């Protein structure tokens, strides 16, 4: 084990090799346990604020980038798959199980539903290029896809919550219902009228309370 070398003239030396092993073990541990972040298709630079409430886990996030394109995501993979299924039925597009599984693992999407099948089947590299050219999810009154995504995601989430509750009751376990929240993540430079359009989509679906995602501001103490 560790042998302190003393006496043989000069300062005692410690064999550092086990410590290096330990250090790299810890690094590996943290690298693996840190949940790998799925690459976001769009970079959104949120403005800063003094509010420090944390983003809840069960949430639908609509991201709006500086160009005004809207992206949609919901955190839970099962809910995602279910939502995709319902969207497909609405727009008469069938998604294979493979595609649904892939979709379940992705993060925000910003493509028209008609191009979604293609988008899912692209390789990762192609998808990056496609993200740059994508037009965002349409939310005009003629074809309010964003509204549909939100509505189906809500239904899917409630269905899943009900299933989980029933399962928990059967097993005699406690079930803590975390209600679904809604969040808007917009870039600082996004024109506010475009954010207002997204807000209108929410209010038309009878959603009136949502979170605006910001990053914590480093301010001097304001009196």
């Amino acid at each position, binding site marked *: 084990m560790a042998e302190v070398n003393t006496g*043989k*003239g000069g300062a005692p030396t410690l*064999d*550092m*090799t086990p*410590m*290096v092993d330990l*250090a*790299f073990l*810890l*690094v590996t541990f*943290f*690298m693996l346990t*840190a949940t790998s*972040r799925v690459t976001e298709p769009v970079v959104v630079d*949120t*403005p800063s*604020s*003094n*509010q*420090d*409430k*944390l*983003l*809840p886990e069960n949430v639908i996030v609509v991201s*709006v980038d500086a160009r005004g394109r809207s992206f949609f995501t919901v955190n839970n993979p099962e809910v995602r798959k279910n939502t995709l299924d319902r969207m497909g039925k609405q727009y008469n597009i069938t998604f294979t199980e493979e595609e649904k599984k892939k979709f379940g693992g992705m993060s925000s999407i910003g493509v028209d539903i008609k191009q979604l099948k293609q988008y899912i089947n692209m390789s990762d590299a192609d998808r990056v290029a496609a993200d740059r050219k994508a037009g965002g999810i349409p939310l005009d009154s003629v074809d309010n896809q964003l509204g549909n995504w939100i509505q189906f995601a809500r239904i899917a989430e409630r269905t899943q919550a009900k299933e989980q509750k029933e399962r928990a009751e059967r097993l005699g376990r406690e079930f803590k219902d975390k209600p679904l929240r809604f*969040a808007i*993540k*917009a*870039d*600082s*430079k*996004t*024109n*506010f*009228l475009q*954010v*207002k359009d997204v*807000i*209108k989509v*929410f*209010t038309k679906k009878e959603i*009136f*309370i*949502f*979170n*605006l*995602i*910001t*990053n*914590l*501001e480093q301010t001097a103490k*304001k009196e």
Partner: protein
Amino acid sequence: MAEVNTGGGGGGGKHAKKRAKKSSTRIDMTPMVDLAFLLLTFFVLTSTFSKPKVMEIPFPKDVDDHTKDTKVNNAVTFILTKDDGVYYYNGQFYPPDNKDGKPATTLTKTNWGPEGVHKLLLDRNKRTIDAIKKLEERRLNKEISDTTYQRLAIAEQGRRGDPSKGVEAALTVLIKTDDKAVYKNVVDLIDEIKVANIGIYAVVDMMPKELELLNAANK
């Protein structure tokens, strides 16, 4: 630094005995340990920083109903425009030649510094802020429970006021933007609103007369 010693190991150079050329390497590992701990600290810290913070914003039902004549008791309206510009006016909007004979509303320019919007809101909402501070003290002294504190604080923020007793209503804020304001401006304003303990605020559309005033002021 790292030293590779051949022929007998470090420190044995003096004993120059004839042996088979056995090269034993002894590398000083200390820099490698430093590096490893640096990487470790990096990963530990970056994994905690990636949690984004949120502001919880309730929005009113009629976001696009700007024709509703909101009976404003004690309100200030902010108009956000291009290049982080912010103007405000107090109370109800009176266009020039209005039938109530009131003086026409003018827009006052302000800024995002501590002397601008921040100071304005703190001054105008002083009564509510002081009342909530008192409630906070009572809560810290365990006189009232947390839920009671919440309930009373929200009631303060929605206070109707009683002019006959000289009690003014709690300040409410209307947020209006033109087509050049950016999201950051609205977030900054809502941030200031929350810091000033204002509970009732709404994002509403601008009226055409307000837009005229704004364009005149922006020139």
